[in-house]
């Protein structure tokens, strides 16, 4: 009998958690509503019944409390897996993540490890209220001591959660929540693999398109649409956001000469900026065009009826592809050398 099953993305993560709980009794799941309810997205469904209340812990409603006690459990030799219910709720635990989780190994000269996994359902596209659709990855990517990963398929959901829990470093595991119901084959006997390597999601020759998590599928759709126009896009699925596997990206860019990075998070200081800068440093002589970012805007995540404007879709990504190819695109009429427009004063007159 094959170990490969057709599973929804969310259930593949559940299978990974179950495998990790079974493999190591030091693994403890903690979070709000994860036990009796099975999590608001049901990712931990059934695990409390299976492993008991000491292994799957319903916690008080306090994010810093969850994260800080997880640090203490790690100090005591456990491997806590913390669920933050929604991306926008991670901020109350931010101090514990950046000051404690990320730095304890360094602070103690390597004596105390922090094998913590922080699961965060992230990103938009499910019509949620405020604070339920954010992409906070840049904060964590910027924090030394943390690893950040995001799966894009059910198989990766299963593989990466096990790899994150097995890692002796703290890992922020970003779950693309609007993909929870996507189905795909999952090999439940797949060997444990290390965190880090990126993957070529689709081969191509004209443009390198880098994405992660929820946008990988959108980028594959863009590649398909471009192929119909005779443009060959290579889609790279980062999988690991920190560190980034630049080897695969560089090799691709040296072949295509063109790079587009896509993400939902706002542009300024985002991961796209980092990748564009690094690739420019290392592949300048191979580039036919400046790297281009297709991202969310520098705005708070908008209300549900507006989110389709904010989250890059297939067409906005293709517009970016047109840009690096020198084809007609939306930026053609935006003069990059135009002086900034004078600011309008409150009474409508122009300020000097």
């Amino acid at each position, binding site marked *: 009998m094959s170990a490969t099953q057709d599973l929804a993305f969310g259930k593949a993560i559940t299978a990974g958690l179950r495998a990790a709980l079974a493999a190591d009794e030091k693994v403890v799941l903690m979070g709000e509503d994860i036990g009796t309810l099975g999590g608001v997205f049901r990712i931990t469904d059934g695990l409390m019944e299976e492993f008991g209340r000491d292994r799957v812990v319903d916690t*008080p409603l306090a994010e810093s409390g969850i994260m*800080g006690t997880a640090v203490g459990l790690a100090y005591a030799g456990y491997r806590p897996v913390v669920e933050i219910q929604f991306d926008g709720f991670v901020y109350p635990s931010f101090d514990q993540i950046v000051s404690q989780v990320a730095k304890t190994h360094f*602070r103690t000269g390597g004596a*105390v*490890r922090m094998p913590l996994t922080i699961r965060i359902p992230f990103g938009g596209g499910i019509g949620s209220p405020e604070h339920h659709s954010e992409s906070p990855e840049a904060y964590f990517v910027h924090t030394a001591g943390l690893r950040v990963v995001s799966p894009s398929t059910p198989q990766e959901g299963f593989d990466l959660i096990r790899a994150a829990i097995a890692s002796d470093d703290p890992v922020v595991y970003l779950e693309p929540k609007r993909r929870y119901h996507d189905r795909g084959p999952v090999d439940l006997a797949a060997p444990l693999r290390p965190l880090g390597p990126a993957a070529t999601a689709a081969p191509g020759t004209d443009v390198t398109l880098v994405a992660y998590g929820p946008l990988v599928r959108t980028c594959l759709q863009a590649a398909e649409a471009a192929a119909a126009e005779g443009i060959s896009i290579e889609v790279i699925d980062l999988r690991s956001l920190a560190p980034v596997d630049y080897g695969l990206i560089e090799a691709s860019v040296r072949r295509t000469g063109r790079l587009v990075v896509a993400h939902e998070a706002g542009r300024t200081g985002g991961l796209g900026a980092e990748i564009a800068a690094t690739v420019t440093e290392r592949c300048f002589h191979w580039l036919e065009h400046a790297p281009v970012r297709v991202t969310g805007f520098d705005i708070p995540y908008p209300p549900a009826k507006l989110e389709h404007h904010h989250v890059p879709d297939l067409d906005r990504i293709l517009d970016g592809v047109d840009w690096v190819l020198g084809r007609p695109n939306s930026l053609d009429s935006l003069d990059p050398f135009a002086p900034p427009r004078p600011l309008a004063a409150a009474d409508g007159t122009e300020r000097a």
Partner: protein
Amino acid sequence: MGSVSLNTPPTGMPHVPEPDLHQVLTPEGHRRPDHDLDPWLEDLTPRRLAELHRDMVVIRRLDTECTHLQRQGELALWPPLLGQEAAQVGSAAALHAEDFVFPSYRENGVAYLRGVDPLGLVRLWRGSTYAGWDPREVNLAAQQIIIGAQSLHAVGHAMGQQRDASTAVTLAYFGDGATSQGDVNEAMVFAASFHAPVVFLCQNNQWAISEPVSLQARRHIADRPWGFGIPAMRVDGNDVLAVMAATRRALERARNGGGPTFIEAVTYRMGPHTTADDPTRYRSAEEVEAWRAKDPIDRVEAHLAALLPEASPDGDAGPGLTVEAVREESGRAADEMAARLRAGLAEITDPGPEALFEHVYAEPHHELERQREHYRLYLAQFDGEQLDARPREGSR
């Protein structure tokens, strides 16, 4: 109706003596009966009292030496514990070796008693390292700078001990200011909800840098834990016996499945918050002098002086034990520690640039390895030059 200004904080809680403040040894050195604490002091001998005296004297000396070392430019910073010797010695003396402690940055006396080498402490405050000790060797977590963050670590650690069915328990130190932090309050919620074998030891030293405790708490700090379902005790933090007894009681309660306890040790920071602080700007000399009269070491000496004439001839204190002998022995121990500290200072060398990149991650990280290699190649260009002889910022 009287005129009550909303902006005026209360004028501070009355200090000792108070009906709810547990005290075993008065500032004059008299033993007072305490129904709750006396059972935890039944094994107390004059010899043990002399040891507590020695530990307080050594720690005071460690503290003054390090304060001087900071003034001499040997340490970047030092957070003095002067005045808090009884709170630190009394609580640390109650711990078993296998118990685990989460300190703030001021528990240097506790660290010493847990077996941390004074040079480890110095290395830390000198800025050579963040790791003055291996937490696993001394069962003491790394010192915590973020106010109150360690209280949650202690609860989580206790939850681990609970799962391990261990007889060891966890103790968390923090100050009065920390009780305003969300983390300390969340720690109490978690500790109560999970019945964690943890003891919270709050050294209320009256001042959070320049902010008086009256700005942090409108009621006694020990009143607060009750609302979380955690029993609390308010003890005279300058009374080493009261602190030791209360901590023993709380630790045993945790050990026996009784859950968390909160102790407010009411004490006073005689010095500045750190060596960078000037307390004369925010508190009066009268206040400081009033607390000087409650000195934790003086009261043990006064007690020994009253006790020893009867105890020394044939008691378990041993022949010839006098208060002078105790004072002399404690002073000698302090001298030895200080001499070791001063001598060891010369052996401390600055870590090399390689140390920058070590232990950021437990597993290989190729981007950091790339930065490390790049910096190594950069330094290699200086070929033979001493790295530290290069011009530093501002000297070019």
